[in-house]
């Protein structure tokens, strides 16, 4: 079944593609992607280095997170205030964050400030000094954030879900660690982690906005061209994991709260799996399309049980997860779990309808132009393309990848992962 999508066909050449996007590799391993857009005098910069909480020692989980935050607490050239004074005085932003596999950065500035922002980005990435005083302050901030997390029913249900579905795998731990593991981290752990993980090899950055690609490339060469770190560790091969043998449920009581959060689901494959697009369409039908797909219709619209319910795929490198979430009154937890399970049974018992498949394909093709709305949207897409080695022609091939999915593809792929008899169920609430 071919869905004609006029808007996509008309504007496909406006989407990032080899003709309007420049990809340059520096000898030290950095990849730069640029996409000019002179419609507003602004720039978005996004990028990442390989390496995140996967490298955290078991007793110091949260180290990668604190190291990423520590990059902006002081450098060889700037103390905390001087660094932020430069950024905030021009209304710009620069942020670092860490996830399981990556340390990411993101900046936004007027195009006239490209040099300044790149010089500060390079300063943070290449010469952090991790001052003791700032470290202690950040550690306290993080411990408070963990105390707040312990009271957040949604965050805790997610954490429990990961512990069930990734049991025994490094992904079972939250990137921010736990109170006791963060308490164990000392200031000297940060430069040590930095030295092992940070470096130019396999780093990628995208610059999108009012700048000529050559100018951007020259600036990146100037600030990052001579960066080397021979002791930078590569990402290890990420092991797979067996799905649950039995249904597994964990409930966490958080007294004094009013609403409970539920996370249910199963493992999902790696981004490079041939099932990727079939699962994406399947998930859309199950818990995303419109007011959150079949699940939204059943749990929210008909039963009136939840303010929110839906499903999502968390797919990257290594094992991923297919998650169904809902927020409900504590009295409705069991009823909601039963309704969701019933929908899952239904989903893996019969192929989706032709109409659902057609709607979902149309959704994915139709929303492509919406990602042109801002420089940061385009930059995020370019980074995604680079990270998963999808090729600059990905958006040109994308319609075909979506169009060729059949009802049977979705049915078979979903049944490979989603087993109503072996669901992981996590609940946190009063």
């Amino acid at each position, binding site marked *: 079944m071919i869905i004609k999508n006029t808007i996509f066909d008309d504007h496909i050449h406006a989407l990032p593609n080899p003709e309007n996007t420049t990809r340059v590799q520096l000898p030290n391993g950095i990849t730069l992607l640029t996409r000019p857009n002179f419609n507003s005098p602004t720039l978005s910069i996004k990028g990442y280095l390989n390496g995140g909480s996967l490298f955290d020692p078991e007793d110091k989980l949260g180290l990668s997170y604190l190291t990423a935050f520590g990059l902006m607490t002081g450098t060889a050239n700037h103390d905390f205030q001087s660094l932020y004074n430069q950024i905030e005085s021009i209304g710009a932003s620069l942020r670092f964050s860490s996830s399981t596999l990556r340390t990411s950065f993101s900046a936004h500035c007027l195009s006239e400030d490209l040099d300044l922002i790149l010089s500060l980005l390079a300063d943070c990435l290449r010469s952090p000094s991790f001052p003791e005083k700032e470290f202690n302050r950040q550690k306290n*901030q993080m411990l408070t954030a963990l105390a707040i997390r312990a009271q957040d029913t949604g965050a805790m249900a997610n954490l429990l879900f990961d512990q069930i579905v990734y049991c025994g795998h490094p992904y079972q731990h939250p990137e921010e660690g736990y109170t006791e593991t963060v308490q164990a981290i000392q200031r000297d752990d940060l430069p040590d982690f930095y030295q092992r993980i940070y470096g130019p090899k396999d780093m990628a950055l995208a610059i999108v906005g009012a700048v000529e690609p050559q100018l951007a490339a020259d600036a990146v060469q100037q600030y990052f061209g001579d960066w080397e770190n021979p002791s930078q560790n590569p990402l290890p091969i990420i092991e797979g994991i067996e799905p649950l043998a039995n249904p597994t449920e964990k409930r966490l009581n958080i007294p004094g709260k009013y609403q409970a959060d539920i996370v249910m689901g199963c493992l999902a494959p790696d981004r490079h799996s041939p099932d990727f697009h079939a699962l994406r369409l399947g998930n859309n039908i199950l818990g995303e399309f419109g007011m959150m797909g079949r699940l939204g*219709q059943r749990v929210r619209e008909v039963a*009136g049980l939840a303010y929110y319910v839906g499903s999502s795929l968390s797919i990257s490198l290594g094992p991923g997860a297919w998650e169904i979430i809902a927020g409900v009154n504590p009295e409705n937890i069991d009823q909601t779990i039963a309704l969701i399970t019933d929908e899952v049974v239904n989903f893996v018992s019969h192929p989706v309808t032709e109409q659902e498949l057609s709607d979902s394909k149309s959704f994915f093709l139709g*929303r492509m132009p919406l990602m042109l709305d801002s420089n940061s949207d385009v930059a995020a897409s370019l980074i995604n393309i680079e990270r998963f080695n999808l090729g600059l022609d990905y958006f040109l091939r994308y319609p075909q990848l979506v169009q060729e999915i059949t009802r049977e593809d979705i049915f078979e792929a979903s049944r490979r992962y989603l087993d109503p008899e072996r669901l992981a169920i996590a609940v946190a609430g009063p």
Partner: protein
Amino acid sequence: MTHAAQLITLDNGLKVHLKEIHTAPIISTWIWYRVGSRNESPGITGISHWVEHMQFKGTQDYPAGILDREISRVGGDWNALTHMDWTTYFEILPSHLYNLSLKLEADRMVNSQFLPVEVERERTVIISEREGNENQPRFLLAEAVQNAAFSQHPYKYEVIGVKEDLYSISREDLYQHYRRYYQPTNAVLSIAGDFNTHSLLQNIKEIFGDIPSGDSVRLILPPEPAIGHEKQVHITGPGETSYLQIAYRAPSAQNPDFFALTVLDSLLTGPSSLNMFGSGGTSNKTSRLYRALVEGEITVSCQGALHATIDPYLYSINLTLHPDRTPEEVLFAVDQEIKRVLDSPISKTEIDRAIKQARALFAFSSENISNQAFWLGYSEMFASYDWFENYVNHLSNVTPERVLQIAQTYLEPDNRVVGIYIPEGG
């Protein structure tokens, strides 16, 4: 590729604000109604927000589910927001589908059904939404502070409403509220994106032009008395973390004092982003309160919040306490910083820096089509589009003397409510 905004009023009173932007094949359509919690009274608090939910339940032409499918099939985004002064509905669609938004919004301006069975289903959904909010200590604190800060004005109540009212509001209450406020004279249609103004306007006239204008429902409320003397409210709840909210009665958006207070807020807690969509904010690490409180390890975070509203609302300083500090220590430290504003001259350089930041943030706000459509309508809800277009100019006119005067007028202890969240496990 961007044209100046066109502001037109149809014969039936519907205001139409259009801005052609041909940077992406997208059209962002918003319809704004001058109704929110400001238009409510005890017994029906939360009704405007509930009406917003019911607007997704369908009409005869677009039954529930069909509407949703129409938008989702083209990959569009749609949603709605209810605030104190307004309710808005938006669709972000591929540009050739602009008529879908127009037809849908014209239809649900008059034809929503409010079926009793749907009202009852939505009652539990909304109570569930409120319970999700109640899980957050900051919501509980803000609700208590709002309640203490107003004696009679409807700003006293959270937009979602008090729980008792959510149990008792009837289908008839909802439908009457809908019929009273959802009409052309009480609405603004704001659209930005990839269209031709002339032909779009023709379509708008065809689709909306026949809707009867309705009675004027502009609401003028008696002024809320001054707070008069410092009030403190204490909330206890689960957790280990303490929160402090210091809320001062603030000027309305149309009061010239609003811009000077915006500059003062920028000095104290950092500049505010003008971006409802996408990126474009900056951090606040060099602001006075961050340096004194967060760097001083008295709090772990601090944010300011100044809302553009029709009537005077609140300027809040929101603080998450360092675990070793008491609310009294934090309040003392905030007062010391305010005293510094009052006692030591503010330099022109500091003001100029705040203006420069605002100028950059204003530029970021024009990067995104939906953000532009948002401001075309939003500014009209409390002032006019001029307010937004001249925003940076207004800030540029603020002098150090004016900031001092504003601090003296508004940041008085007698003009504030101090809310403290005390954790049971702390």
